[in-house]
């Protein structure tokens, strides 16, 4: 909210400049979001007298004016309908710069020279266009600088008012806070009431359907209103805080709202039907045309003010166009009320409308300001709109409204929460500065005072203070957080163990980043097209996504059930960036599976509406790469190898089972990853080229992913085994293997026949093509033998090897290559 320092000074003075005030407010919890200077400066604009007018020879709508600016007569072309001879106006001479930045110079308008411009209020930043150029009083002396009449300089602070402090939504409230913070004297706005000179009756009644919706409603009548512009000081202040002046009546209601925080509404009495206003729910009424001319749709959540012909205002939100104050207005019925915050909020939300009025009412108005604000506005109407105020009024209020009971304050609790040693007297003094009052304990004894040291009564404008802890905050705030002890006795630190999942996560991230993978963080959202592009079957559970129903951006509104689309988007971005391939990426992110959440303890009724949120590890190699072993797509073996290595490090016993289980995988190049005892936990494979093309990727991409939450989150319990210190004997097998025989089958036979001393076997070469018969592949397998008992003899090893080769030949037709 914008605050004018000029305006604030009506109520309080403080030491120092705008900057020190800003830091005072900041440290009191009122953030200053901006500071600016507001000036109305009109260099080169002067009062001028229109001496003669004539029609422009080329244009009917333009007038040729001879204008005396106090020094010379200038010839000016004017397009305003209200220009006439013998009028006092504001003239921008050539060289003048208007607030909008427009430079005035001598110009030709439809062939006629114009030596300046006669200005409207809008062009000068002084308000709206009231039918054309600004007219000055006849007595204004030509040649007078506009600055002398309209110049204004003010400093503006833009305050962020937190929702708990509606009392700060007016200049007086901010001044009251400054006074409390600094001890400065606070000057309240003069309290004026109309002299009871007549027994004139208001002749209006107000009926409130429900005091719950509207606990208080007052109506006053101002007669003989003369509509016109508001006085300069008011217009300047409104402009300074960003409000456009409209006319004296509307400006006065806005002015009082910005001053005292209480929204008001002015009805044109002459346009109301009957003599009774009803505050009620909209009921059967479905349409309402607001002041902005727009017709809004109502339902029964809306609270309206109705006359005998229907709604004339949406309570606390906006007035209706039917009773709008305009040039014909002679009598003003002034509303000042207290509407229920929730009712105003719901009504405004439903219309998607936030007004200055609804903003204040939904944060709760000040009960005691309702009447004061009305009198203040009536006083201003009398002073600046020539109104005669009818002393009679309507003030309907809920007779059963409960005042808030005093709040018990325990000084021990204050010190317990703050870690301080504050005395009761200091605490009380701080609260009194905020206009809180101390109720003697004796008087409050009948209430629940418990072990309280004092009972504190809260004024009507601080309804945010409801409990002891709220008072504790005010004490800490006014005393200053800098005075908290900085080095309290150290609490006994407790040793804590990291959770297993966190250790797994740490291990995974450390390992992958060390072997060349870069971690990415991707969005939780995906688009419906992403699921199509992946080619997921109709019945695929991953098509069942939760969706966000009110996303600001269209498109990606589904909560992802798979990490793939987000990965592919990031890959495409990087593949298009001319980086060295292959790219290696990994991510650890959650996916969201509706209806899959297991039992949660303790469980709330709606807990089953939450999805399961498994944490997936996904890694990818993209782009062409040197292949090892030769002849195979390297990325495919890499992702499989990395997952297997990780599994070994962490203690999973992952098994990669060949099988085309995913529609987005390339045929014959997929594994399901299974964990003994946990079932399927992931997938690895090469992505299908058409799927990749759908995501705008040409390069091959191989992916492995595992659901970390479905794997045992325990790091391996390592136990050291004895190892043999005897030398190893190595033998290389060079085999010609017919297609259809898998490495897994070969390895099983080699292990079975290799004997106890076979320590390891390793594939070091894989080759098909030139020199190899069609329908077969050449495999190089290195076997390492070692005995725990002594030096192995070459002959012993060769015997084992012979057994192996015999069996391989017999079982698979695999031949030793020459």
């Amino acid at each position, binding site marked *: 909210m914008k605050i004018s320092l000029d305006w604030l000074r009506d109520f309080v003075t403080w030491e120092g400049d705008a900057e020190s005030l800003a830091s005072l407010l*900041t*440290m009191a*919890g009122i*953030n200053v979001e901006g500071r600016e200077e507001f000036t109305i400066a009109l260099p080169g604009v002067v009062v001028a007298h229109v001496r003669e007018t004539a029609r422009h020879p080329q244009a009917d709508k333009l007038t040729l004016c001879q204008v005396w600016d106090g020094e010379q007569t200038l010839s000016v072309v004017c397009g305003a309908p209200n220009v006439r001879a013998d009028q006092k106006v504001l003239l921008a001479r050539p060289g003048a710069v208007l607030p909008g930045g427009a430079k005035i110079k001598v110009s030709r308008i439809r062939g006629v020279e114009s030596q300046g411009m006669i200005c409207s209020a809008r062009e000068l930043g002084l308000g709206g266009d009231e039918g054309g150029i600004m007219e000055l009083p006849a007595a204004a002396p030509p040649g007078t600088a506009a600055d002398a009449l309209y110049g204004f300089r003010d400093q503006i602070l833009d305050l962020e008012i*937190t*929702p*708990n*402090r509606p009392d700060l939504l007016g200049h007086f409230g901010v001044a009251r806070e400054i006074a409390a913070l600094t001890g400065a004297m606070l000057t309240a706005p003069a309290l004026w009431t109309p002299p009871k000179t007549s027994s004139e009756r208001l002749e209006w009644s107000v009926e409130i359907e429900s005091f719950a919706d509207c606990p208080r409603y007052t109506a006053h009548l101002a007669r003989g209103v003369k509509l016109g512009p508001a006085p300069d000081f008011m217009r300047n202040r409104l402009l300074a805080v960003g409000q456009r002046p409209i006319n004296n009546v509307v400006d006065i209601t806005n002015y009082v709202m910005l001053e005292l925080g209480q929204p008001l509404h002015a009805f044109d009495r002459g346009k109301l039907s009957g003599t009774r206003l009803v505050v009620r729910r909209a009921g059967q009424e479905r349409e309402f045309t607001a002041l902005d001319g727009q017709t809004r749709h109502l339902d029964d959540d809306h609270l309206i003010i109705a006359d005998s012909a229907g709604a004339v205002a949406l309570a606390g939100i906006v007035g209706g166009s039917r009773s709008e104050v305009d040039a014909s207005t002679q009598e003003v019925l002034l509303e000042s009320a207290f509407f229920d915050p*929730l009712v105003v*909020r719901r009504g405004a939300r439903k219309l998607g409308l936030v007004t200055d009025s609804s903003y204040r009412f*939904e*944060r709760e108005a000040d009960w005691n300001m309702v009447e004061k604000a009305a009198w203040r506005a009536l006083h201003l109407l009398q002073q600046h709109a020539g109104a005669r105020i009818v002393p009679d009024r309507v003030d309907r209020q809920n007779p059963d409204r409960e005042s808030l009971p005093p709040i018990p304050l325990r000084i021990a609790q204050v010190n*317990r*929460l*703050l*870690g*301080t040693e504050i005395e009761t007297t200091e605490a009380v003094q701080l609260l009194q500065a905020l206009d809180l009052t101390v109720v003697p304990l004796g008087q409050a004894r009948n209430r629940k005072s418990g072990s309280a040291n004092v009972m504190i009564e809260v004024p009507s404008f601080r309804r945010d203070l409801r*409990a002891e*802890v709220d008072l*504790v*905050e005010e004490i800490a*705030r006014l005393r200053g*957080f*800098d005075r*908290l002890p*900085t080095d*309290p006795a150290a*609490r006994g630190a*407790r*040793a*804590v163990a990291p*959770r297993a999942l*966190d250790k797994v996560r740490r291990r995974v*991230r450390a390992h992958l980043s060390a*072997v*060349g993978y*870069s*971690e*990415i*963080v991707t*969005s*939780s959202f995906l688009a419906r097209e992403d699921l199509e592009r992946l080619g997921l079957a109709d019945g695929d559970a991953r098509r069942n996504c*939760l969706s*966000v*129903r*009110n*996303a*600001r*951006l269209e498109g990606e509104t589904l*909560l992802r059930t798979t990490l793939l689309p987000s990965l592919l988007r990031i890959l495409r*971005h*990087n593949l298009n960036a001319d980086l060295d391939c292959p790219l*290696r990426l990994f991510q650890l992110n*959650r996916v969201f599976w509706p209806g899959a959440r297991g039992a949660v*303890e303790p469980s709330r009724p*709606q*807990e089953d*509406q*939450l*999805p399961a949120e498994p944490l997936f590890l996904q890694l990818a190699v993209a782009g062409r790469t040197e292949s090892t072993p030769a002849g195979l797509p390297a990325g495919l073996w890499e992702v499989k190898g990395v997952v297997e290595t990780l599994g070994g490090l962490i203690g999973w016993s992952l098994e990669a089972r060949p099988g085309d289980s995913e529609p987005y995988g390339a045929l014959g190049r997929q594994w399901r990853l299974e964990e003994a005892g946990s079932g399927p936990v992931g997938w690895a494979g090469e992505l299908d080229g058409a799927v990749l093309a759908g995501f705008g990727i040409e390069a091959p991409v191989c992916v492995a992913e595992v659901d970390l939450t479905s794997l045992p989150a325990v790091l391996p319990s390592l136990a050291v085994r004895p190892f043999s210190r005897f030398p190893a004997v190595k033998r290389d097998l060079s085999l010609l293997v017919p297609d259809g025989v898998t490495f897994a089958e070969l390895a099983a036979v080699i292990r079975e026949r290799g004997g106890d001393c076979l320590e390891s076997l390793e594939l070091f070469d894989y080759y098909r093509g030139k020199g190899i018969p069609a329908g077969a592949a050449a495999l190089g397998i290195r076997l390492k033998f070692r005995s725990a008992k002594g030096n192995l003899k070459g002959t012993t090893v060769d015997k084992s090897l012979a057994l192996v080769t015999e069996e391989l030949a017999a079982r698979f037709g695999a031949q030793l290559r020459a």
Partner: protein
Amino acid sequence: MSVMDEQIARLRAAAEARIGAAADGATLEAARVALLGRRSELTQLLRGVKDLPEAERRVAGDALNRLKTDLAAGLAERERGLALAARPAGAVDLTLPGAPPVPLGSLHPLLVVLEEICDIFHSMGFTREEGPDVELDYYNFTALNFPDDHPARDSQDTFYVSDAVCLRTQTSPAQVRVMERRTPPLSCIVPGRVYRNEATDASHASEFFQIEGFSVDRDVSLADLRATVQQFVDVFFGAGRKIRFRPHYFPFTEPSVEVDMACASCGGSGCAVCGRTGWLEIMGAGMIHPNVFAAAGYAPDAYTGYAFGLGIDRIAMLRWGVDDIRLFYENDLRFLHQFRGAW
């Protein structure tokens, strides 16, 4: 041919012979001193140029300087030749770049900061917890003392899945979830992704990361919070960074504060980094509201506790001078690889 020309030609021939004859480094160094040193004949001749008749000066000076340059080049060439000859068989160029066995990967900067902050609090006895991304409105708002339909909810534009289910706008809902399961004393740290239904720009993302921390015991005070935050700042940002508590409003804490840290870029005098205030906001914090304890089922006044929430993105931006939050989510490897050294 002038006398000078003859002298130079003689000098050149002798010098070249001497350089060519040098068979090791020491001899070559001695030749360098003798030929180009301060007392060498060449140097003497150069000094004498100024005494020559004006007409000869320039020609003589040029010739002598040419000789000097040539001799220096000859010496360097001979030095290379000697070094080459002295090389062992099979020698390699040792200035070739090193070849690590695997390329370097990197950890994501946001998660580096997140893990580091968790570690610091872990060292102070905080255990790590998690909460769901998709959260009940109840835990995200109601249990945290945000009344239904209250303007305080406006400050957090929320993604709703249904009336009862939303994407968490903060990591704070974990407070009540943890407290429902455990009894104090407890000190927890809850990192996670949060969501705001907002337009994105250089300083706002609709998905970002927070860490919630809270500590509950019989008599935990605001002074304890201050001491804990100061310790965190000392470790994470470096000792001696001043902090201040500025009053604020959060529904789930009372008193509520925002914690500011003195700006390191300007030392407190105000600069573009700190918006000319001299301070940088690093977290929101406060004493846990009695209504939150009530939602967790704790008896009134039985416990007190503090809670705080840090925005990871903002802290990572401050630490590394990142000026656009979207860089973290674009995942361009040219950005990410600048954090290869971060872990």
